[in-house]
């Protein structure tokens, strides 16, 4: 319990520090101006969200292989937390796009593949609500999670190569190549902070799932008597 409180405190401190850094330490971008500061939040959330989905995939694989319910807990926690992060990505993306491109939504490759990713994990969670029996639910959703995860590179490849008629937006293209060193440092710090925050949410969600399983077990015991 104390460990979880420490993790929460560290996560919140890191997140506040990264927000401070992205507003006051990082220099203002020349062509885009202030709006570029969303980048530290938007892209860092995207990375943390993908990590959460990856953890979900690992949990799914391990469940199918080892059949321990802990792995199923990891799967559902990763999916839910990843969904929260990609939701933030999908909301902050248009807020960024609006002043820069003049439109809220473009069928840009990254935005669109993130959207499909989001849909896939919504289906994953939906499937979980529709299977009663715990072992069956764990197995079926793990298998769907595996199929969904291997679909992700195919989705982003298909969209990148065949859907983007207009040239890649300049902002994302510049990432890594022409990025100012301070900006880079602030970005990696933000990404780290978001990962710690993601870990905090994941631990909380995992603990909930563990308690839920315990409660379900006890409820069956009580009913049996």
């Amino acid at each position, binding site marked *: 319990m104390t460990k979880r409180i420490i993790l929460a405190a560290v996560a919140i401190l890191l997140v506040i520090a990264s927000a401070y850094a992205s507003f006051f330490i990082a220099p203002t971008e020349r062509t885009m101006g202030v709006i570029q500061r969303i980048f530290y939040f938007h892209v860092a959330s995207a990375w943390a969200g993908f990590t959460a989905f990856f953890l979900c995939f690992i949990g799914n694989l391990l469940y199918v292989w080892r059949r321990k319910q802990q792995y199923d807990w990891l799967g559902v926690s990763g999916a839910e937390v990843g969904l929260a992060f990609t939701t933030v990505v999908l909301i902050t993306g248009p*807020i960024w796009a609006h002043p820069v491109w003049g439109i809220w939504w473009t069928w840009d490759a990254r935005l669109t593949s993130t959207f499909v990713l989001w849909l896939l994990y919504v289906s994953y969670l939906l499937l979980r609500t529709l299977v009663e029996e715990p072992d069956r639910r764990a197995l079926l959703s793990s298998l769907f999670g595996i199929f969904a995860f291997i679909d992700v590179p195919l989705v982003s490849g298909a969209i990148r190569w065949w859907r983007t008629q207009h040239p890649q937006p300049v902002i994302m293209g510049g990432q890594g190549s022409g990025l100012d060193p301070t900006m880079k440092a602030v970005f990696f710090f933000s990404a780290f902070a978001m990962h710690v925050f993601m870990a905090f*949410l994941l631990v909380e969600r995992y603990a909930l799932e563990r308690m839920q399983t315990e409660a379900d077990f006890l409820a069956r015991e009580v009913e049996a008597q």
Partner: protein
Amino acid sequence: MKNLDSVFAAYLIGWGVFFLFYLTVARRTSAVRAELERLKNQLPKAK
């Protein structure tokens, strides 16, 4: 300082989403904890 409002909106809404998510987890956790207490009390009595 053009577009500063958009940046603030993004941070506000983004953290709002995270806060809401945390809130749902916390609420579900306290509900399950109460349920767990109730069941634990029920079990020894029945025995």
